[in-house]
């Protein structure tokens, strides 16, 4: 008499545990008398255990019938053992499939995870009590501990538990010895799966329950349908592109970046994780003097790549300085800071940006079309996080479609391409690799790097800020 717990949320029946149904189907196939795994009889003390199979036969059957490698077959077999569909006869506490002559048996469907109801503590208590009755002191240390715990918690129904245990014990005695031995093995295997010994885990452990019951039907009231209608209407009106275009773009991205993917083409000079030599990271720091050729090439792939790489952005700034059009990027950066900044600093930042970039006669006035300027200035009356979105997008597109391409053709970029280094691939001997492994270098804490960056930024801002004429004249007069 077990009450199914509500909190279970029908986890056992959900598609989440659909793997169990598939495992079941495989196990049924494996037990087919003609096409399944061949079993033999094994002698254990004086009894003969029927239908015993070896680990290697199981792996061979899975390899052949599921059309996979023996490694994968072994892993799959281990899952069968871990879930209790097959149990080991020797070393019964370790639920793995050994691809050798180790002996296994199929578990009876009564004890399969989907068949039996949830493994309740009451049942476990009955099982342990039964074993205690059979022979005192036969319980393992961890089982004894569990038994004592259960005795404490379930004290109120202990009489019932002992009664059940005695009944099951007597019923067992009435069976034939061979059947009894087999049943005991099966029951023991079941409890190893559901109440794992210490230092092992149960495959039935699926983690936390989901909060919302997936088996519960969502109430389909009129507002449920209205929401679907609102969403689907805008989804229908969304513009979409042809598959050939978008899939072509995905494939193109892969081809463009192929040489930069360390899993496809080895990175130069070597992958730090493979050789324990971190030169690759040293050569690619955000503020390195001379970047590598691969890095410089990557800047040409898209404007986003150029901006995303701090070294690339710095190079782009040099180019803009030569063109006297640094205000566009400066505005974009300031708008990014506004968008991603803390809520408290927003109005202050917005004001600063307006004074520096948007006000008529501002020192770093950006050139955007009248409509966008109008919208932005109006929005700045009540500044919010996205007030500069329209202007920022306009400036970004301008830089992307025009300035970026001029940068790629400029002497600044061409010179960088020439200067960029191409490190030679490492060729470490085994002894050198051993040594590298012993001498792995720690790196500077990112906190220190961040603090340095902030200092540099503050200095750069002070240097490029609008020149205060009065102060300048005053300092000139002072000197005189």
């Amino acid at each position: 008499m077990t009450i199914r717990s509500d909190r279970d949320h029908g986890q056992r029946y959900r598609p989440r545990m659909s793997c169990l149904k598939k495992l079941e189907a495989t196990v049924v196939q494996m037990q087919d008398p003609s096409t399944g795994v061949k079993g033999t009889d094994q002698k254990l003390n004086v009894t003969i255990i029927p239908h015993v199979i070896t680990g290697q036969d199981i792996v061979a059957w899975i390899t052949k019938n599921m059309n996979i490698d023996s490694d994968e077959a072994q892993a799959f077999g281990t899952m069968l053992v871990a879930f209790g569909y097959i149990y080991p006869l020797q070393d019964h506490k370790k639920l793995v499939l050994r691809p050798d002559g180790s002996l296994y048996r199929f578990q009876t469907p009564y004890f399969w995870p989907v068949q039996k109801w949830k493994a309740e503590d009451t049942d476990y208590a009955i099982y342990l009590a039964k074993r205690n009755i059979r022979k005192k002191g036969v319980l393992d240390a961890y089982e004894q501990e569990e038994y004592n715990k259960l005795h404490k918690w379930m004290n109120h129904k202990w009489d019932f538990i002992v009664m059940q245990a005695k009944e099951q014990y007597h019923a067992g005695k009435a069976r034939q010895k061979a059947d009894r031995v087999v049943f005991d093995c099966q029951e023991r295997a079941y409890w190893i799966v559901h109440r794992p010994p210490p230092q092992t885990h149960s495959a039935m452990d699926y983690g936390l329950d989901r909060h919302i019951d997936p088996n519960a039907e969502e109430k389909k009231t009129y507002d449920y349908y209205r929401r679907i209608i609102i969403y689907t209407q805008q989804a229908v009106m969304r513009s979409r592109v042809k598959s050939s275009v978008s899939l072509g773009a995905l494939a193109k991205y892969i081809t463009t970046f192929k040489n930069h993917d360390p899993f496809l083409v080895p990175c130069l000079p070597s992958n730090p994780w493979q050789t324990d030599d971190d030169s690759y990271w040293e050569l690619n720091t955000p503020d390195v003097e001379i970047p590598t050729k691969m890095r410089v090439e990557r800047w040409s792939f898209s404007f986003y790549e150029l901006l995303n790489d701090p070294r690339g952005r710095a190079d782009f700034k040099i180019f803009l300085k030569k063109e006297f059009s640094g205000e566009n990027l400066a505005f974009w950066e300031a708008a990014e800071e506004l968008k991603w900044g803390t809520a408290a600093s927003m109005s202050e930042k917005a004001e600063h940006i307006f004074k520096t970039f948007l006000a008529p006669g501002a020192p770093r006035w950006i050139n955007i079309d009248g409509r966008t300027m109008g919208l932005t200035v109006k929005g700045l009356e009540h500044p919010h996080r996205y007030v500069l979105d329209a202007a920022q997008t306009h400036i970004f597109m301008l830089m992307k479609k025009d300035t970026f391409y001029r940068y790629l053709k400029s002497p600044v970029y061409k010179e960088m391409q020439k200067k960029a280094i191409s490190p030679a691939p490492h060729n470490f001997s085994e002894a050198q690799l051993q040594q590298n492994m012993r001498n792995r270098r720690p790196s500077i804490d990112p906190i220190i790097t961040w603090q340095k960056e902030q200092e540099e930024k503050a200095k750069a801002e002070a240097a490029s800020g609008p020149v205060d004429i009065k102060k300048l004249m005053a300092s000139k007069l002072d000197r005189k």
Partner: protein
Amino acid sequence: MCDQTFLAITFGPCDNCSQNKPLMNIYLKNEPINYCSLCVELMACQGLAKGETTNTLKAESESLKAKLEEERAKLHDVELHQVAEKIDALGQFVMKTRRTLKGHGNKVLCMDWCRDKRRIVSSSQDGKVIVWDAYTTNKEHAVTMPCTWVMACAYAPSGCAVACGGLDNKCSVYPLSLDKNENLAAKKKSVAMHTNYLSSCSFTNSDMQILTSSGDGTCALWDVESGQLLQSFHGHSADVLSLDLAPSETGNTFVSGGCDKKANVWDMRSGQNVQSFETHESDINNVKYYPSGDAFATGSDDATCRLYDLRADREVAIYSKDSIIFGASSVDFSLSGRLLFAGYNDYTINVWDVLKGTRVAILFGHENRVSTVRVSPDGTAFCSGSWDNTLRVSAYLRSSGESELRNILYNTV
């Protein structure tokens, strides 16, 4: 880069209540209008008009759904494997575990890389959050959370803080310190507050904002300093298990996946659900954007991983095999997007060729479920965290010139 949302007006006077608020772009009788989220909700909940019944609304929604499928099908002119025909197949792939990080006393649930490409933060079931230098395998910081099952952790872009949360329903930010003896819990900042467990969190482009997803079915954007809720996202009808921010230059969208089998794409500014995909047969455990931001992959309990194209607005690939029957808990792309690493509940990691749809490698080694797989920021390695209490960093095995002897010598690091 694809971000249609940047062209829409997302803040201003609502067409209904005239207040200045973030706006959703919807259609009323085929005319585009801009309503604030409150007005949209009111519109949905207003009483039935004359002649309307639940059944007429149901019929209307069904016909609209059919129309959406029709529109999608019109532009469906080619399959991914056809496009992939022109591309060379990948060779044999052998990966090797290069670092095994031992130190957690219980299941590792989540991990994240630092932008310096070598540090990681990981969280586990017993409430411990550890920051490691994975390259030297040294532990640098450790925090004990006041709750168990810390399912979400994230490294701040600056490298100066970590965020984590779980069964405490909150997301807390811990600023890291150069002083190793300092108790990090003293400076902890509680940022997000949900009504159920926190399943995933991520910093946006700066340390100042955090995006979270929760078992209560919502996602939310928070301001770290003040703990203020900036935007909430409603639309999932069950637990949201994962989210990922789009790597686009305009950075305005993110995707979330949940137990209602849906993957939703959201506009961060207005809170509007702009795209939704429902083709999985079970819970979506993990979502990850393709490096270009034009597509995303999902891993689900139905033992498949799927690729969805955002511009074509449909599912374009299913990564599955008859022999893989256990759910995929975590997915991530390699730097170029050619490889998809997926961790499964049968203790293995499968590596898929994104274009061809075939599996190129399978990794064994973990002794329990693989709960999280993340590729490092520069793509040189990937880290997998598992319920066997360890994290493993694996990289491609150099195939040319590496002798057999070397393999044996450096088998366990």
